[in-house]
């Protein structure tokens, strides 16, 4: 063998697997973005429900966050993947509509979103409680409606406290997409395994996929740094 590594396997066009890997990487990013956005929505409503909701709503949310945080993501993904698609089809059947084939992408976004929602509920709840009560009271005293208080005061003021936790969650979301390989969704990790199995070049492909994930993490870290500096611009620098 003239060279230890056969780089042509990573070529973008057909005999090489590079294109397939990048396609899988794109799917991973799509799912991470979608799941993270859904998780944020769930998290904001969950945090407000926990802080200002009635006792029953609070207890139900507590159950949600506790269960999701105590059960492995892999098990949750299996449960939600099967149960979610099943329930939706039964619901459509009750409404008299035919069963739909739910795409793996939507199912993946749903699953990651539900898992992320529980964690971001906790992060955002802590951040909202860190906002000085006087600021919210002042907003109320000015006659702002609750929705306006949320949009103008609570969300912007809690952002600096929430960002470290939220950026962690984003990094976790990108890595959790790998678990969807177990339910057979063609994201980066599964494509990598298929490529490696077909060519027997295990190290090459797994390292290439690792490099892609690492690049995503490092780029995310740089972007997060910029956002954090922007959000903390009014703060006294601690140190």
């Amino acid at each position, binding site marked *: 063998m003239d060279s230890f590594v056969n780089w042509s396997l990573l070529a973008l066009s057909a005999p090489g697997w590079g294109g397939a890997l990048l396609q899988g990487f794109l799917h991973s990013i799509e799912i991470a973005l979608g799941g993270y956005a859904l998780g944020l929505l769930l998290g904001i409503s969950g945090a407000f429900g926990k802080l200002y909701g009635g006792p029953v709503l609070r207890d139900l949310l507590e159950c949600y966050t*506790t269960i999701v945080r105590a059960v492995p993501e892999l098990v949750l993904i299996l449960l939600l993947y099967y149960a979610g698609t099943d329930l939706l089809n039964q619901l459509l059947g009750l409404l008299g509509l035919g069963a739909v084939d739910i795409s793996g992408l939507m199912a993946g976004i749903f699953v990651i979103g539900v898992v992320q929602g529980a964690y971001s509920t906790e992060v955002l709840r802590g951040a909202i409680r860190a906002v000085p009560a006087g600021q919210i009271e002042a907003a109320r005293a000015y006659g702002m409606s609750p929705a306006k208080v949320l949009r103008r005061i609570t969300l912007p003021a809690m952002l600096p406290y929430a960002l*470290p*936790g939220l*950026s*962690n969650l984003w990094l976790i979301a990108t890595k959790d997409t790998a*678990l969807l390989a*177990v339910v057979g969704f063609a994201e980066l990790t599964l494509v990598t395994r298929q490529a490696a199995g077909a060519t027997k070049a295990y190290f090459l492909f*797994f390292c290439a996929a690792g490099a892609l*994930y690492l690049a995503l993490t490092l780029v995310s870290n740089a972007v997060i*740094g910029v956002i954090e500096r922007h959000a903390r611009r009014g703060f006294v620098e601690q140190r």
Partner: protein
Amino acid sequence: MSNETTHALAFSPQDLPKTESFFKPHRIVLIVLFVGLVLAIAIFMRWDWLPRYLPRLGNGILVSLAMLFSTSILGFLLAIPLGLVQVTGPWLLKGPARLFCTVIRGTPLLLQLWLLYYGLGSLFPQFPAIRQSFLWPYLREAWPYGVAALTISFAAYEGEVMRGAFAGVPQGELEAARAYGMRRWTMFRRIWLPRAVHRALPTLTGETVLQLKSTPLVATITVIDVYAVISKVRQETFLTYEPLILLALVYMCLTGLLVLAFRYFENRIPTRGA
């Protein structure tokens, strides 16, 4: 940047319900509803497979727990030097340690696991020296690769925590130790390490719970843990929900027990003002 917070908020002792102020009218209604749900699950779903698989399930739980404890302990032992060299080490050690933590924390555990199992597993048989060594019977099994991957992952995450913990020990305490004439090693053993471990303990609970939640991944490389047993049940009985619900319940109980155990140990460590 948030290097100190390595993970999302794990389930922690503060999340356990307290006995006082637990029973309120609406809670009793919720509990009744919940008991009804459990009864409905028990009656209307199929559980006749359970007795046949019970011994295997018990075995699987033991394998999962063995994975958890061995990798957490090994990983923690690795995390101490990893954290230490990042704080005081020469750049020759500091650089690789930081790189190790970044790379491991930046890639999914499943990928690392498959890299070790399929990658190394396909590489080792090519070397006769390895095939003839006494290690070969173990290297042909799947569990050493699972242990290795989980240990490395735990070491990287906890190493980052230990770095913060070592750096957070007040300088005055170390200076006092030096003033007493302690040598570097004595100072490390008597002051620096115990204080750092004490500082890192609260995060250790969360990391261990997260490690428990990572153990089912080893089922993807044919280690028969509780998750693999449940997968087997699903294949043989064609049931979807019942085994998964049981699996979720098993993991919730394990997490609860783990958190309770950690709370017990944390309460035993005296703190100021307690």
